[in-house]
């Protein structure tokens, strides 16, 4: 349904589940999902609260197109205050649970407080019940999923859960749904576990309705699917190699963060690339990639389903990992691979399986391991600290052992669960943490892609590629090619990407559609689905409103312009090889102009006029 106009409010402290009407005034301003839930969060919690206290809320939110026939219309997000960054967190996931929440008749679920004992929410249409989690607390996400499916005997039950990593306080824990799709970043799973909420199991059979203009909606979504199918990226490229097509591209352009971002090209990139995932291996003649997969309603199907080489050391005595499961996306392959110097595709696949199985973000995990490897290399960490683990760059064994320890929060896994910033602080070398606002970088070195430096520094959830993916323009030429080494024009480019992405997320769509779609393709779908005057222009304006709302939340949480920066390594140490050789990121040339075009003060604070113009 476009809007069911219903929110489920779950007070975990009191153990109550109450239906309430959706605030339609906010829905017509903030669209849905990321934007609308951020509005609820900003209105309902103190942004300065402790993220892991009962004062924080956690929201599972759908968009107006979630559950409809729009391509990729299965997305949902988890919105809360992040324990990793102290900033607003919004982690987006595909799979099937977003659609299920909508089909059960809900636009959002807001969790408040903290349950006195571990519980899970069982939601079947109007029937919402908090149940004891005694049988699943202490279990992995995969075990939890199996236990609940067996208990309810319903294969169509959709489950989002946290794993043992979150229970043990790993600060970058994810909420994993459908076993291998995740609201992965910023520690949203850690917040869920802190509330003693283990899982949300949903079954919805109400179907799709409430479309404002059904005929126009069918026309607009069919046309949208035609555009996706005819575009070479969304019609072919993403389905064939997935996001992993980028491994060789980004290495070739010299923007591949390598060994804790000391280098910008990885000699082993081709061994862990999308192309390598297609090559038959010696042992059984099969490729790492079994097939591609799609989230609900998606006609792109970028998902990777993989197996590990049956003769690989990681699964020698672990038959549970021998079958198909969620394979490497580019972000995971980079963070687990080039950033740790490991070029063993099967070891990376195994570590990725563990990230899904116990719910922790492979980007933050890989980046934290790589920081630990550098600390180990300079002697700031020794085997005394690591429990005997030889954390050497390039060691697949060290990587996979580290993954096993973080999954269960044992031994040195506790330290690794702190994330790169707190780990480097603890061992006396804060300069080795490659983070912004405490969140680890994704897979693009900003010395070789200047706009990404500004996008990282100003991202409202810390270092992130999905808040303003200027790689699309600077490297891939979509919608227009820009020079990755130029700083001129980048503040405008970053702002345009940030605002448009906020709107796409908030509609309930996957951002990968934007390799083919512009807001001109999306707006007719939204306008036909739901209330509000939705045009490409009004969606950009909503995106800008959302961006400023998130910024205001962060300022109220105590963040300042001083947090809009990059590690010194990226600002002062020039890239050593490749096309970016000799270059640093020129953030200082871009940031003042960015503040200005955003309508913010020189200190990065939205002015009263800007907030009034956007009616934030």
């Amino acid at each position, binding site marked *: 349904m476009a809007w069911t106009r219903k929110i489920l409010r779950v007070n975990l402290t009191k153990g109550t589940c109450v239906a309430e009407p959706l605030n339609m005034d906010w829905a017509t301003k903030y669209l849905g999902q990321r934007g609308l839930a951020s509005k609820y969060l900003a209105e309902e919690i103190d942004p300065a609260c402790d993220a892991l206290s009962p004062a924080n809320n956690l929201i599972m939110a759908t968009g107006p197109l979630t559950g409809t026939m729009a391509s990729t219309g299965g997305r949902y997000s988890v919105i809360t205050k992040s324990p990793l960054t102290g900033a607003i967190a919004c982690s987006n996931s595909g799979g099937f649970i977003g659609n299920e929440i909508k089909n059960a008749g809900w636009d959002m679920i807001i969790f408040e407080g903290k349950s006195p004992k571990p519980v899970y929410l069982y939601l079947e249409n109007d029937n919402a019940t908090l149940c004891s989690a005694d049988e699943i607390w202490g279990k992995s996400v995969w075990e939890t999923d199996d236990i609940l499916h067996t208990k309810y005997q319903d294969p169509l039950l959709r489950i989002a859960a946290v794993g043992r990593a979150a229970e043990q306080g790993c600060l970058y824990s994810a909420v994993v749904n459908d076993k291998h799709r995740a609201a992965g970043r910023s520690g949203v799973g850690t917040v869920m576990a802190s509330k003693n909420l283990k899982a949300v199991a949903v079954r919805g059979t109400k179907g799709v309705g409430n479309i404002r203009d059904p005929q126009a909606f069918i026309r607009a979504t069919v046309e949208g699917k035609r555009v996706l199918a005819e575009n070479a990226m969304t019609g072919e490229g993403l389905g064939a190699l997935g996001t992993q097509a980028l491994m060789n591209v980004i290495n070739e352009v010299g923007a591949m963060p390598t060994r804790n971002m000391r280098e910008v090209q990885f000699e082993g990139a081709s061994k862990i690339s999308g192309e390598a995932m297609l090559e038959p291996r010696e042992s059984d003649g099969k490729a790492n990639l079994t097939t591609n997969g799609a989230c609900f309603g998606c006609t792109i199907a970028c998902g990777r389903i993989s197996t590990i080489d049956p003769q690989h050391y990681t699964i020698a005595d672990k038959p549970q990992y021998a079958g198909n499961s969620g394979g490497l996306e580019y972000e995971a392959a980079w963070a687990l691979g080039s950033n740790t110097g490991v070029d063993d595709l099967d070891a990376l696949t195994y570590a990725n399986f563990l990230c899904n199985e116990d719910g922790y973000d492979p980007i933050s995990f890989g980046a934290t391991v790589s920081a630990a490897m550098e600390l180990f290399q300079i002697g700031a960490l020794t085997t005394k600290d690591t429990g005997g683990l030889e954390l050497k760059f390039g060691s697949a064994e060290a990587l996979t052992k580290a993954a096993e320890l973080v999954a269960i929060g044992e031994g040195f896994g506790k330290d690794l669960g702190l994330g790169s910033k707190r780990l480097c602080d603890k061992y006396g070398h804060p300069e080795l943490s490659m983070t912004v606002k405490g969140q680890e970088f994704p897979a693009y070195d900003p010395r070789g892609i200047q706009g990404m430096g500004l996008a990282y520094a100003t991202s409202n959830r810390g270092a992130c590629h999905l808040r303003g*993916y200027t*790689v699309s323009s600077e490297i891939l030429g979509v919608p227009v090619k820009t020079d990755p080494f130029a700083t001129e024009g980048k503040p405008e480019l970053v702002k345009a990407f940030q605002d448009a992405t906020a709107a796409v997320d908030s509609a309930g769509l996957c951002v990968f559609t934007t390799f083919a779609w512009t807001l001109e393709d999306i707006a007719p779908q939204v306008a036909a689905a739901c209330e509000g005057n939705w045009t490409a222009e009004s969606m950009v304006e909503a995106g800008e409103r959302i961006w400023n709302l998130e910024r205001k939340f962060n300022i109220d949480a105590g963040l300042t312009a001083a947090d809009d920066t990059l590690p010194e390594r990226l600002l002062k140490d020039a890239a050593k090889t490749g096309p970016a050789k000799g270059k640093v990121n020129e953030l200082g040339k871009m940031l003042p102009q960015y503040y200005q075009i955003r309508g913010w003060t020189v200190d990065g604070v939205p002015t009263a006029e800007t907030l009034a113009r956007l009616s934030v």
Partner: protein
Amino acid sequence: MKLTFKLFASLTDLLPKEARDHAIDIDVADNATALDLIDRFRIPRKSAHLVLVNGVYLDPDERGEANLRDGDTIAIWPPVAGG
């Protein structure tokens, strides 16, 4: 002059069998252009989406110009995306 020629993604099948790591060393005339190479390896021109010379983007308007130098690496992708 000698060049290193690389093809990726769905174009890898167009490389000769002796290619390693998606790359092959080739000898070409000193005035060879990127378009000459695209045609020589039977790459449909619309599939040569991303053309990098030593990692730097070569604009479609410049692909017919003799701007390659001895020792260059030229790498070509069909339309690919990611995130």
